[in-house]
């Protein structure tokens, strides 16, 4: 499937293992599916079902374990395994995170934050080049949800991402919910953040739910936790509206990873996102008609 045709796709959903048998059996009306390869590489049966589903549904591969931000280097053995799965699925998108998760042979099962400076930029550019070379396709880099920043950062996250795009030709996965989460946690304007991302580089959106907690040592403040365990907030959908107007329609994914509901609940979330897209397209059409 060419990237050109993907902008017309309705919202897709993340396919997690508890749902795969249902999806394989019922073939629900969902526009596309995203998988984490780490869930399938150690599961031959699920892979068998997935390869069959990939003949019917467009599939996106969203890596969580390549760890392009690791100072000690990416996990090349894991990258080779991901490549083997990609060869079988021929996904229309392959993406990962602006984060690190491995350290000296240990996998920390989380997406950990990075300082934004020249050293990190050089490292990530090298790693993205390597990933795109191994996978023989563009890699979409997702903006993270952050709880902390670094005094060593010398550029904004948007500047950092734009420079990665310029150096490597990678594309961006704009996680709209992450923009909202980080903007609250680190106190910046989420709309300005979207304005600063390079328009032509954004090739996908993510939407996921988050929880609100009292901030440690500051009960009067809140911290948002990116759990993917609840429905998408209306405030994130408002930001999605803005993102659609700025970047145009792009494949949009509903992420739900914890406290997984019925698959029908995920489809209902996709319907909510599609309604926002229809509203934006209608509005843009009217603006265009009005000159």
């Amino acid at each position, binding site marked *: 499937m060419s990237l050109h045709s993907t902008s017309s796709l309705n919202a897709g959903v993340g396919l997690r293992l508890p749902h795969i048998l249902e999806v394989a059996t019922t073939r629900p009306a969902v526009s596309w599916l995203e998988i984490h390869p780490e869930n399938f590489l150690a599961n*031959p*049966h699920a892979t068998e079902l997935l390869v069959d589903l990939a003949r019917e549904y467009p599939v996106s591969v969203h890596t969580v*374990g390549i760890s392009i931000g690791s*100072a000690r280097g990416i996990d090349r053995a894991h990258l080779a395994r991901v490549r083997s799965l990609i060869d079988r699925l021929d996904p229309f998108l392959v993406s990962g995170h602006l984060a690190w998760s491995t*350290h000296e042979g240990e996998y920390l099962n989380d997406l950990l934050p990075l300082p934004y400076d020249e050293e990190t930029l050089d490292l990530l550019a090298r790693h993205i080049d390597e990933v795109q070379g191994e996978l023989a396709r563009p890699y979409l880099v997702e903006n993270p949800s*952050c709880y902390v*920043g*670094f005094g060593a950062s010398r550029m904004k996250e948007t500047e950092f991402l734009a420079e990665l795009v310029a150096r490597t030709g990678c594309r961006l996965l704009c996680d709209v919910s992450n923009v909202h989460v980080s903007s609250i946690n680190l106190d910046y304007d989420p709309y300005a953040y979207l304005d600063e991302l390079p328009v032509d580089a954004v090739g996908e959106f993510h939407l996921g739910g988050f929880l609100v907690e009292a901030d*440690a040592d500051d009960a009067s*403040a809140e911290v948002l936790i990116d759990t993917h365990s609840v429905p998408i907030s209306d405030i994130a959908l408002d930001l999605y509206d803005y993102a659609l107007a700025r970047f145009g329609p792009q494949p949009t994914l509903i992420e739900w990873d914890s406290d997984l509901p019925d698959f029908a609940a995920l489809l209902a979330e996709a319907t909510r996102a599609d309604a926002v897209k229809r509203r934006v397209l209608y509005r843009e059409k009217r603006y265009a008609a009005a000159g």
Partner: protein
Amino acid sequence: MPRLADTQALIRAAVVDGDFAGTAAFLTGGRAPVARLRIHERHYAASLSKALLARYPALARLIGQTSFVNAAQDYVRRHPPASPCIAEYGLDFPRFLASRRWLGRTALVLALGELEWHLGRVAIAISHAALGREALATIPSGELPEIRLELQPGLAYLGAAFPVDDIIRLHLAGKPPCGCLLEPTPIWLEVHGARGEFRMVRLPAATWTFRRELQLGSRLGRAAEAGMDAKADFDPGQALLGVFADGLAVAVHCSERGI
């Protein structure tokens, strides 16, 4: 200003070991950024403990949920995953659990843990088309001892000193193990799974030994000898037919050719 590798080493110590020393010097965010880093520490311990609980549910029922979770949280700090595929994590957790002095029942914990690990593994296997006994028809009888059989991928052979298969059955029925199941009873177990399902069959010791040797890749002649070592009147011919009758053989490999 620390280099990125040093920064990541300090964050790793915070997330895995709970050692936050040195992190305040470089973190920002909120009034207490170090406390924010605890969100990652909490996620690390909770997500991996949850993965172990999903992998060993009968073991958790046997020793008690609280004891299990406490041990799991200790384990994940001492033994971080080596791979992003979390389904591959926790193979040695039963041994870690059994080593805790307060627990007791070391052999039972090890045996039940080993069985649960293999149940998780075989249930996600695929199955290949099984060969019939006629696959042997073209092989000269003199070459038979030299052949190797390739068995279904979703097979495991476990010897245990306790009736752990019955403990699993009770667990699946939502019941705790009764006292009699906690007494030593040697069993020889074949676990066969594929595509989300599994079955457990107790085998005679000699048959179990024969099949296990085949699964390990031994020549048919060697597997037959192992069976006869286990029981003098073991009949390798009948045992071989049983392997085909149970649909376990998927390929026959001669020394220089595959069939």
